[in-house]
C-alpha cells in the first residue's frame, strides 16, 4: 500500500466535501482545506481541555464538597473505558445518516475507479476521510478528559484510551465502507431487472440496516447495555467493538498482560476489517446499474386523492412526485429513519422519563421530524429545480404542493406516534385524543416553519453528503424550531395533565402561540417561494 497515495486521495476526498459548500467553494479559502478540519479538531480539543481544567479547579477549590480531586477518580474510571465506543459510535451513527445515503454517483466512486489505485488503497483513503470528518467528537471527549485523567493519576489509561479511540474511529469508517459496498449492491438488488417489490425491498433493507446500526451504536443504548453487561465478560469478550473497552478495564484492574492482549486483538481486528472492506470493494468495484421496471403505470390517471384535498392538477402532480421520492430515494431515508430511532429510544428508555417527559419527547420527535422533512423539501429538488421552475407553475402552486407533501406524512406519523405513546402510558381516551392533537399541531406548525427555511436557504448542490439546506440555516431552523416546539409542547402538556388546575388556559396558550407562529410561518414561507421564482438560486 502506497501511503503517500492514500494520504493524497484522502485529502482530496475531504477537500471535495469541505468545498461543496457555497461559502467554501473558493479553493483559496482556508475553510475548504483538510487542514481546517484538523484546526477544528485542535480547537475543540483545547476548548474541552479548558473546560476540564475548570472542573479540576472547581473540585480542588476550598469550598468544594468533601473528597476533592479523589471524587473524580470513579468518574474517570467509568468514562475512560467508554471512549473507544464513542469513536466507533459517532462514525456509525452519523455515517449511517450521511454517508450511506449518498447517490450512486458518489458512492460508486467512478471518479476514482479508473485511477491506478489498489482496492485497499482506495478503502484506506476513503475510510481515513470518513474518520477524519467525524473526528471532532473524539477530539472533544479526549480534550475534556485529559486534565481529569492527569489529576487522578490515570495518564497511562488515558493514552491507551486515546489510541484505542483513534483505532475505533477508523474501525467505524471501515464498517461504513463495508456497509456502503453491500448497500450499493442492495441499491441494485436485482441485477438486470426488478419491479415494484424490488423497490420496496431495497427501501426496507436500507431502513433496517440504518435503523439497526443507529440503535446498536446509539450512545444512550450502548452505555445502558454496557452497564448491564458489567460482569458478563463472556458476552463482551465476543464482541470485537468492546475489546478496546475491555483493554482499558483490564488495565484499570492491573491486568497489564490481558490489556495488551485485548489491544493486540483490537489491532488485528482493524487489519481484518481493512481486508474485508477491500474484498467487498473488489466485489462491488463498479456498481451494477439496475433496471427497475414499474409496469402498469398509465398516462393521465390523475391524482384523485390529492384533488379531494383541494389541490389543482399541477399541485397534485408535484405533491405526488414528492411522496414517491420520499419512499424511493436513498438520500431521503435518514429523514424516514429519524422518527423511528427516536420513538424506539422512547420505548427503550420510557420508564425512566415518566409520562410528562414522554409527552415532551414525543413533541420533539414529531416537531423535529416535521422540521427536517419540510426544511429539505425544496433543496431535495437539487438541479431538477431548474426543470421545475421552467414548467408552467407559480410560487403559490409550488408552495401548496410542497406543504401538502410535507404535511401528509408528518401529521399522519405524528398522530400514530401520539396514539402509541398514549397507549404505552395507559392514558385515558380524552388525554390520548389531546396528545394526538398536540402531536399533530406541533407537526403542522413545525412543517410550516421548516418551509420558511426551505424557500430561502436551500442547498441545491450535488454533494457526497446531501444536506439540502445550508448548514447555518439548518442550525437556525433547529434552534428556532426547538423554541417554537417548547412554546407549544410545554403548555400543551400542562393542559393535558391538568397540572395547575387551569387546563383551558394552557391549552389556549398552546393553540394561540402555535396558531400565531403557524400563520406567520405560512406567510414567510410563501414569500420565500416567491424569491425562488425571481432568480434561479444556482
Amino acid at each position, binding site marked *: 500500500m502506497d501511503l503517500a497515495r492514500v494520504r493524497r486521495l484522502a485529502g482530496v476526498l475531504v477537500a471535495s466535501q469541505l468545498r461543496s459548500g457555497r461559502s467554501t467553494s473558493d479553493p483559496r479559502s482556508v475553510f475548504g482545506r483538510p487542514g481546517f478540519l484538523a484546526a477544528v479538531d485542535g480547537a475543540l480539543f483545547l476548548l474541552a481541555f479548558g473546560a476540564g481544567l475548570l472542573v479540576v479547579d472547581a473540585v480542588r477549590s476550598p469550598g468544594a464538597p468533601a473528597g476533592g480531586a479523589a471524587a473524580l477518580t470513579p468518574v474517570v474510571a467509568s468514562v475512560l473505558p467508554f471512549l473507544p465506543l464513542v469513536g466507533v459510535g459517532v462514525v456509525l451513527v452519523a455515517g449511517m445518516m450521511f454517508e450511506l445515503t449518498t447517490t450512486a454517483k458518489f458512492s460508486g466512486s467512478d471518479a476514482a475507479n479508473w485511477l491506478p489505485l489498489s482496492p485497499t488503497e482506495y478503502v484506506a483513503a476513503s475510510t481515513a476521510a470518513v474518520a477524519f470528518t467525524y473526528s471532532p467528537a473524539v477530539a472533544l471527549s479526549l480534550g475534556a478528559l485529559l486534565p481529569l485523567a492527569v489529576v487522578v493519576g490515570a495518564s497511562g489509561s488515558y493514552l491507551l484510551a486515546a489510541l484505542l479511540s483513534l483505532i475505533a474511529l477508523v474501525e467505524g469508517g471501515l464498517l461504513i465502507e463495508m456497509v456502503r459496498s453491500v448497500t450499493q449492491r442492495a441499491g441494485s438488488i436485482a441485477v438486470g431487472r426488478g419491479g415494484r417489490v424490488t423497490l420496496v425491498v431495497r427501501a426496507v433493507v436500507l431502513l433496517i440496516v440504518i435503523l439497526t446500526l443507529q440503535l446498536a451504536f446509539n450512545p444512550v443504548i450502548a452505555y445502558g447495555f454496557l452497564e448491564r453487561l458489567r460482569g458478563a465478560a463472556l458476552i463482551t469478550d465476543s464482541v470485537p467493538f468492546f475489546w478496546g473497552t475491555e483493554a482499558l478495564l483490564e488495565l484499570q484492574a492491573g491486568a497489564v498482560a490481558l490489556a495488551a492482549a485485548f489491544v493486540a486483538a483490537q489491532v488485528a481486528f482493524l487489519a481484518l476489517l481493512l481486508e474485508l472492506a477491500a474484498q467487498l470493494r473488489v466485489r462491488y468495484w463498479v456498481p451494477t446499474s439496475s433496471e427497475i421496471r414499474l409496469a402498469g403505470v398509465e398516462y393521465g390517471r390523475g391524482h384523485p386523492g390529492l384533488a379531494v384535498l383541494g389541490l389543482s392538477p399541477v399541485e397534485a402532480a408535484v405533491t405526488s412526485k414528492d411522496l414517491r421520492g420520499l419512499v424511493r430515494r436513498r438520500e431521503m431515508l435518514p429523514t424516514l429513519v429519524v422518527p423511528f430511532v427516536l420513538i424506539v429510544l422512547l420505548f427503550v428508555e420510557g420508564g425512566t422519563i415518566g409520562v410528562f417527559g414522554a409527552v415532551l419527547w414525543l413533541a420533539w420527535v414529531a416537531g423535529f421530524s416535521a422540521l427536517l422533512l419540510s426544511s429539505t423539501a425544496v433543496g431535495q429538488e437539487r438541479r431538477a429545480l431548474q426543470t421545475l421552475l421552467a414548467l*408552467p407553475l407559480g410560487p403559490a402552486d409550488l408552495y401548496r404542493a410542497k406543504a401538502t407533501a410535507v404535511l401528509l406524512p408528518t401529521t399522519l406519523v405524528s398522530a400514530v406516534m401520539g396514539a402509541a405513546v398514549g397507549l404505552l402510558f395507559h392514558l385515558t381516551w380524552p388525554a390520548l385524543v389531546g396528545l394526538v392533537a398536540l402531536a399533530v399541531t406541533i407537526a403542522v406548525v413545525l412543517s410550516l416553519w421548516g418551509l420558511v427555511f426551505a424557500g430561502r436557504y436551500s442547498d441545491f448542490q450535488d454533494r457526497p453528503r446531501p444536506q439540502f439546506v445550508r448548514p447555518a440555516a439548518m442550525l437556525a431552523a433547529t434552534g428556532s424550531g426547538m423554541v417554537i416546539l417548547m412554546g407549544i409542547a410545554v403548555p400543551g402538556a400542562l393542559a393535558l395533565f391538568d397540572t395547575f388546575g387551569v387546563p383551558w388556559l394552557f391549552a389556549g396558550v398552546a393553540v394561540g402561540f402555535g396558531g400565531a407562529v403557524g400563520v406567520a410561518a405560512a406567510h414567510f414561507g410563501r414569500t420565500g417561494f416567491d424569491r425562488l421564482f425571481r432568480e434561479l438560486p444556482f
Partner: protein
Amino acid sequence: MAALPSGGPSGAPSPALEVVDVSKSYGTVRALQGVRFSVGAGEIVGLLGPNGAGKSTTMKAILGLLRPDAGSIRLFGAEVGTNPVATKRQIGYVPESPSLYEFLTGTEYLDFIADMYGLDRATRRERIGQFLTGLELAGHEDALISGYSQGMRQKVALIAALAHRPRLLILDEPLNGLDPRSARVTKDLLRNLASRDGVAILFSTHVLEIAQAICDRVVILDHGTVLASGTFESLRARAGLAGSGLEEVFLALTGSGDLGDVVAALER
C-alpha cells in the same frame, strides 16, 4: 433603437422571441452584455459560442429563471415575467444537462410533465407514444430513470419539451448523447416543426455541422456579447472566408482561427 437582427423566413410581424440589450452579471463577472437578437415564428436560430460565452445564461434569462440586470426579453410580444405561467405554457425547454427525477420511471416522469401542461389522457398516449417510438425509447418507459443511459435521459427531456406542442423551443445542446439515428430524427423533427407548424426554435450546440445543417440563422456569442449574427452566408462573407465551412467562420470570428501552433505544441 437599432433594428433587431432578425429576418426569419416567415417574415412574421412580431417575432416569437426578442432579446433586447440584455445584460447580466454574477458578482464581478459580466455574463451577458447588451445581448440583442430575435427569433421569428418558423425560424431556427443557432446560438453558438465558446464554453462560457453566455449561451446557457441567455436561455435561462429567456425562460425567466434568471432576471437580467438590464434590457428586456419579450416572448410573443409580452415581457417575460408579466404572466410567467401562461408564457411557460408556450415554451418547451431542454436544459444543457437535463436533471430528471431519477426515482420516477420514464412514463411517470412524462405523465408528471403532461400534468403540468394539462394534457388530456388521449393526447398523452398519442403524442408521448409517438415520440417514444420515434426516438426508440419504447420498451424502456416503465424503467426507473436512474437506470437510463445519458442518451435515454436526453430523449426523455426532448419528449418532455415537445409533448405539449410549444410555440417556442429553447434547446440547450439537445443532441447531446443521442445516437446517430435519434439525432437525425430529432433534426428532421425540428425542421418540420419550424417549417410546418411555425414553431420558433432557439438552438444551442457546439457541433457546428449541425448548426449549419438546420439553422436559418446563427447568433455567435463570445464573452457575453453578440459577436456576429446572421445567415451562414452573411457570416461567411463578413469573415472573408468564401467557400469555407461554419467551423472556419466560427473560429475566425471568435479569434481562435490559427490553432496550428496549439496542436503542434500538444503533439510535442
